[in-house]
């Protein structure tokens, strides 16, 4: 793992809304983590914890209040010329949550997918553009007859496939998927997740996978970050996080997932998380610390010593 190249470095990222007003919201409050090339990093947490904002700030849909996002060593934020921005936009793409709202209903599927191709001038001739669109449609499991239809003619799962084709059109290396399957039916969710995994294998994509369905996140992710009120409370390899959760919030989150197993469900005991249980005193340095290799927990110096012992 250590040998892997860091594709994205996020350093002390902050995103505040309504700065200076009484209703200031610290949606993302000092996040620091890396994403390695070719991996899938899952981001989980309850609604309002700032996971979607994190994704949107990384791709610069919002301007960060503070902190850095380094993509391949270069800062995404800060003053940028149009040409420089264009370069980033080609490398980073996003798949949105709601397949019904994220496709322009007045554009044909071919134009939806080819918008990026046109902007970046990736196709020299009209024939080339059509061919690229048809190839993309095939990649995501649709066929070329679909190119001349409008979004409303498709089901939710098919629309999400179009959203994926659009993201792939400019050949990005990094894709942010913001709850890409939450709006889909169970049987269709599996289709989309399998497709995303297949594309990752074939094209060496790196994913930031944002979701609140924890069992799906575990299945698709290599590492998982747990967010709570704008902060990362735990970051660990997927298997490790589920087998050995350390932060009390992660424990409570895991104990709340219902599993499709009636006997297990009858015996499941839910744990609740009380943020005041930490009893942090003033001057305590609460930060993300590495307990075992690759397993980070937000804790104070004292908690760190205790976790280390376990």
């Amino acid at each position, binding site marked *: 793992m250590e040998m892997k190249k860091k594709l994205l470095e996020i350093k002390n990222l902050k995103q505040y809304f309504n700065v200076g007003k009484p209703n200031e919201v610290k949606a993302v409050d000092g996040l620091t983590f890396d994403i390695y090339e070719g991996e899938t990093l899952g981001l989980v947490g*309850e*609604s309002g914890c700032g996971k979607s904002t994190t994704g949107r700030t990384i791709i610069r849909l919002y301007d960060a209040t503070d902190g850095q996002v380094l993509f391949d060593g270069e800062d995404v934020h800060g003053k940028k010329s149009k040409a420089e921005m264009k370069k980033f936009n080609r490398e980073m793409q996003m798949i949105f949550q709601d397949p019904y709202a994220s496709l322009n209903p007045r554009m044909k599927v071919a134009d939806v997918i080819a918008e990026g191709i046109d902007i970046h001038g990736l196709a020299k001739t009209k024939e080339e553009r059509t061919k690229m669109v048809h190839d993309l449609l095939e990649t995501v499991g649709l066929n070329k007859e679909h190119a001349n239809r409008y979004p409303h003619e498709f*089901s939710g*799962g*098919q629309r999400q496939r179009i959203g994926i084709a659009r993201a792939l059109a400019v050949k990005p290396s990094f894709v942010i998927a913001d709850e890409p399957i939450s709006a889909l*039916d*169970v*049987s*269709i*969710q*599996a*289709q989309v*997740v*399998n497709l995303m*995994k297949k594309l990752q294998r074939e094209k060496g994509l790196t994913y930031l996978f944002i979701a*609140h369905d*924890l*069992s*799906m996140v*575990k*299945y*698709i992710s290599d590492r998982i970050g747990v967010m709570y009120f704008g902060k990362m409370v735990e970051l660990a390899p*997927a298997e490790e996080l*589920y087998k050995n959760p350390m932060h009390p919030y992660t424990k*409570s*989150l895991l104990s*709340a*997932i*219902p*599993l*499709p*197993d*009636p*006997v*297990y*469900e009858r015996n*499941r005991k*839910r744990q609740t*998380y009380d943020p005041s249980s930490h009893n942090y005193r003033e001057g305590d340095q609460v930060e993300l610390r590495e307990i075992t290799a690759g397993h980070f927990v937000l804790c104070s110096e004292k908690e760190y010593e205790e976790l280390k012992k376990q």
Partner: protein
Amino acid sequence: MEKILEVNDLKISFHTFSGEVQAIRGVSFDLNKGETLAIVGESGSGKSVTTKSIMRLLPEQSSEFKSGEILFKGKDLTKLNDKQMQKIRGKDISMIFQDPMTSLNPTMTVGKQIMEPIIKHQKLSKSEAREKAVKLLDLVGIPNPEIRFKQYPHQFSGGMRQRVVIAIALACNPQILIADEPTTALDVTIQAQILELMKSLQKKVETSIIFITHDLGVVANVADRVAVMYGGKIIEVGTVDEIFYNPKHPYTWGLISSMPDLETEEEDELFAIPGTPPNLLNPPKGDAFAPRNQYAMKIDLEKEPPMFKVSDTHYAATWLLHPDAPKVEPPAAVQKRMKMYQEQHK
């Protein structure tokens, strides 16, 4: 066990510009007193239409009641007029809707909305109703009920709003509570709280619950019995253990194995049911699931399978259960999961 609700051969269609959509194509089930029946299935399988027809909440202009009966304690709800139905709705049978953000009236205080059914059905005075409403808010676990009583829905979070909706539904101690995806819009931790709340309330007031969801984890948590719907029909019904540990219908197999659990290895590909649900504008001849079913036989395309009996409580509509059918094994993913369950439960 006492049957409180009996639905027999219910058929409902919708009239649309493109023609008649046969949303419900012959649904029959029973609900016993005090039990929770979960109805699962994809969107468009007819779960919500079934329950809305019990409440008689389908739009009159576009929906057509084709046939069937809905017996509530022996009384056929389909034969009642609007006035008689109003006396049952919200009193004997009440409903919790999916989206707590839109099922409350934003211009009325929460307290007033809870008082409404109490005044209407129980004929209490305003002050008595008020007292009862505050008690209900307390019962569903809303802190400071006296203050919250006077607030508007926008001052509540999603989880709190759903508690208010539950309080309204429980206001008249209904005998049947229909919950249409009550936790789908909520976070897992809030979902766990709401499910615990519903279960504890069920014990207190002995309500029967019909629980609609597509989350099998939630089903395993709340249900006593499960009915699986596909293409406007119930294709498998049984106790929760029978459905999860001994499923018989290929669609149920697909549903169970398309959901990863925490043990699913990353290398395993998820089993995805191929294709899309049937278009009920022209329901296919034969078994509606046949085009997506890898076990489909010739007869599946020609004749609809009847309900075959597996046990006294377990029935499934698939020709695979016919004595003449070839013996097939469930997909590897299902077998693996069944084995895992067996080992874990030892």
